């Protein structure tokens, strides 16, 4: 693959970096990354990845753009309110960088469709907004051995961790089970400061860039915790749990749990 003149110009500020160079840029252009959720986390992440020239960006979201999204979901605009988020994101990303092949998936992920979607990608970014999807994505990535950048936000708090399945801790090693429905409010109910989504989503983009380029150290085995009110970042160690239900020594979860059923089961308890 030979970089065109306009690509050399477009990406010059990162090609200049000794750890990137023309070879690194080619890696980025050949990379396929799937972003789950075109919301608060997915927006900044997709903008940076498209700008950096990630060659193929899949985006999964079943929602339409609403006016109350624009406070933090910066890939969308007033002009796309009412349109599917994936189409709104595709238009904006291609307006920035037409090199990027954006593949929209205007669907809700389920145990029946997730493997088919993630199988073609090199890495997955979880920017979803609910526990059932997060556990579904984690389990699917462990089963299919896909590196996963996980990010979560709540009010003024943010968290990020990168999961290299069977090498570093997965999300269930960290939190083996989701909270019962109703115990932890969602962003919709609890509110979120837009910049917190920007910070964590940008960290997720940075994790993808490092992973694809093979530089630095990803947040594997480490949970990054951020609090916006005191601008406090901290990292805690996350070891692989030998008792992890998906990637431990005797896994009790061997097939994907459909999230609706998951919630239903949880409610019955």
């Amino acid at each position, binding site marked *: 693959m030979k970089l065109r003149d306009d690509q050399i110009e477009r990406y010059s500020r990162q090609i200049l970096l000794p750890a990137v160079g023309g070879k690194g840029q080619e890696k980025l252009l050949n990379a396929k990354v799937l972003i789950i959720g075109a919301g608060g986390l997915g927006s900044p992440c997709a903008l940076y990845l498209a700008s950096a020239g990630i060659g193929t960006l899949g985006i999964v979201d079943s929602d339409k753009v609403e006016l109350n999204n624009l406070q933090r979901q910066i890939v969308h605009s007033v002009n796309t309110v009412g349109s599917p988020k994936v189409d709104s994101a595709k238009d904006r990303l291609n307006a920035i960088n037409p090199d990027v092949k954006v593949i929209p998936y205007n669907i809700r992920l389920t145990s029946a469709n997730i493997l088919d979607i993630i199988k073609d990608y090199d890495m997955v970014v979880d920017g979803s907004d609910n526990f059932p999807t997060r556990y579904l994505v984690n389990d699917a990535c462990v089963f299919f051995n896909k590196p996963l950048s996980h990010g979560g*936000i709540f009010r003024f708090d*943010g968290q990020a961790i990168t999961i290299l399945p069977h090498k570093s801790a997965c999300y269930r090693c960290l*939190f083996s*089970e989701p909270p019962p429905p109703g115990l*932890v409010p969602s962003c919709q109910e609890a509110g979120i400061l837009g910049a917190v989504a920007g910070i964590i989503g940008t960290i997720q983009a940075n994790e993808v860039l490092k992973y694809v380029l093979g530089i630095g150290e990803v947040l594997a085995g480490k949970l990054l915790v951020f609090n916006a009110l005191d601008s406090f970042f901290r990292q805690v*160690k996350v070891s692989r749990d030998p008792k992890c239900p998906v990637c431990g020594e005797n896994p009790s979860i061997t097939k994907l749990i459909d999230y609706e059923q998951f919630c239903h089961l949880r409610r019955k308890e």
Partner: protein
Amino acid sequence: MPITVRIPTPLQKVTQNKAEVVLSGSNIREMIDGLERNFPGIKERICDEKGKIRRFINIYVNEEDIRFLKQDQTSLKDGDEVSIIPAIAGG
């Protein structure tokens, strides 16, 4: 033995919006009981009916997860920083 406990946003409703609480206790169990004395209701947010720490909440002493130390018997010393970190799902 003063230790600093970092309270996550979802639990700050119980701690009167305090993000940091200083208290004493020689292990995690005592620390949780100390929190409960100061902020009634916080224990049931952290522990289940059997008193076990809930599976979507982790407690760290400095950078170490107590699940890989001695769970709630993990001892604490002067100046330790304890973080309570719950799973959060917003995006």
